[in-house]
């Protein structure tokens, strides 16, 4: 399976757009938000603000990376490549597994780059254990969005999928309080934010960063993960890879 894994990884790696939106953009946002919001804050609150922005941007980047890598399944289906693979000795199950693994792996550069920017550009100070736990927990949590991306990628055709990557990532980030903290939201929007997996994903990061582990984010994210994975399996069964024409 290594050959297929490297093959797929190389393909995504060639996509400049993907690298820009999942690594560079969250890193730039991290600097931008920290300077804009942090610049107005009293000296004693800068660390808290910079830490909060960092966690939000790590979550934003991870969601974008997970969705961007997996929704691409729709392109491979539309181009006929998935069908082509079915008539080679490559087992169908491994194609699916590799896409999940590639999606999960590609979350990591985004998390690490934003963390490094937070540490060395914005001067966020966590203990080493906290850094590792933060990256690790968000990495595991991002599997929820890998599952969501697989479901969406299988359900949509190429054109709709291309739009979905951007729209879904933006909606989850904006409404889940990743760009502007939920505390700034009016009442109704707060309730909406708390219904979104992106909010709980960032909440997981905030818990880990603060060292106040509550468990609620883990439970909510696990619930979403199960729902998205089930949705992906249902769609995979309903939408075969072959064309019925001819």
């Amino acid at each position, binding site marked *: 399976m290594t*050959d*297929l894994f490297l*093959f797929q990884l*190389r*393909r*995504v790696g*060639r*996509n400049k757009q993907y690298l820009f939106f999942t690594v560079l953009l969250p890193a730039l946002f991290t600097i931008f938000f920290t300077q804009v919001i942090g610049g107005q804050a009293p000296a004693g609150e800068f660390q808290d603000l910079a830490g909060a922005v960092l966690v939000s941007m790590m979550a934003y980047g991870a969601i974008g990376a997970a969705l961007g890598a997996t929704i691409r399944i729709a*392109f*491979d289906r539309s*181009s*006929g*490549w998935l*069908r*082509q693979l*079915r*008539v*080679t*000795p*490559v*087992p*169908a199950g491994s194609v699916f597994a590799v896409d999940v693994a590639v999606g999960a792996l590609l979350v990591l550069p985004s998390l690490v780059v934003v963390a490094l920017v937070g540490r060395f550009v914005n001067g966020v100070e966590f203990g080493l254990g906290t850094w590792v736990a933060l990256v690790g927990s968000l990495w595991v949590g991002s599997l929820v969005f890998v599952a969501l991306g697989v479901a969406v990628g299988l359900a949509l055709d190429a054109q709709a999928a291309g739009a979905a990557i951007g729209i879904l990532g933006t909606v989850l980030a904006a409404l889940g309080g990743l760009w502007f903290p939920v505390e700034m939201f009016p009442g109704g929007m707060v309730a909406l934010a708390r219904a979104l997996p992106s909010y709980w994903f960032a909440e997981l990061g905030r818990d880990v960063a603060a060292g106040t582990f509550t468990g609620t984010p883990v439970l909510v994210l696990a619930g979403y993960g199960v729902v998205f994975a089930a949705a992906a399996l249902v769609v995979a069964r309903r939408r*075969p*890879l*072959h*064309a*019925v*024409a*001819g």
Partner: protein
Amino acid sequence: MPETPALDVRGLTVRYGDVTAVHDLTLAVPRGETVALLGANGAGKSSVVNAALGLFRPAAGTVRLLGREPVAALEAGGVGAMLQHGGLPSEARVGEVLALVRGRYEDPWPLADLAATAGIGGLLDRSVDALSGGQRQRVLLALALAGAPPLLLLDEPTSAMDVEGRQAFWATMRDLAGRGHTVVFATHHLDEADAVADRVVVVAGGRVVADGTAAAIKARIGGRTVRFRCPGPRDGLSGLPGVTGTSGGGDWVELATSDAEATLRALLAGRTALPDLEVRGASLEQAFLHLTSTADGVLR
């Protein structure tokens, strides 16, 4: 005990909603044979090929490739296939795609020879996204041949090729057949079937309507149509030498004939004028109509 056939389709029925695309079709192809599935568009050829490759579960019937279930045979590396709607991955180089597929076969076709055979020698470093239609088709052929598999199933493999590409392609197929590979391909060109296949299986309306040597099928459906304007009486036309059927609307008369020359001589002898005379090869559709209207249609 007889050898297991390379392709063994029994009682295959394929339905898409209310439409039955393949009716209870049975076809066995012994190892080493080159067989053309000849039929017009919509005849059910692709459905037979796709079902044979296990791309979907048929409504009824069984398929065995080299004695195994289709998916098992594919995963064991015994089959190479070209699909009508197959595709290549974006953001990849031709050589990488080829390496991925070749690496999955135990004894892959040597790269340089494979690239030369498929005519993609200069394309290995090229991005897949930069290929023309004909080049894509050749890369897809290379993927089908990558493992030098004993059985090749090809669904209209030459549809995007120019004349030269076609000739090179069929030379390759004849060469493979000569080395003992079994080649089964779908086409709607009688000439193509005739040029390559030992055996031609004519499919129409999801059924096998004729099955025989290329020569026998060609004699059967390779007739001519004689067409001319005939406002007057038409008595005796159907009794002329070679004529197998008459049709036509308005002033026009169309004679289907198995011997155009004899029919024309008789016409010229009996008439003073044949305005707007045309002699054409019978279209495959006409040939199929003729075959399907014949009692059981099966030669052999």
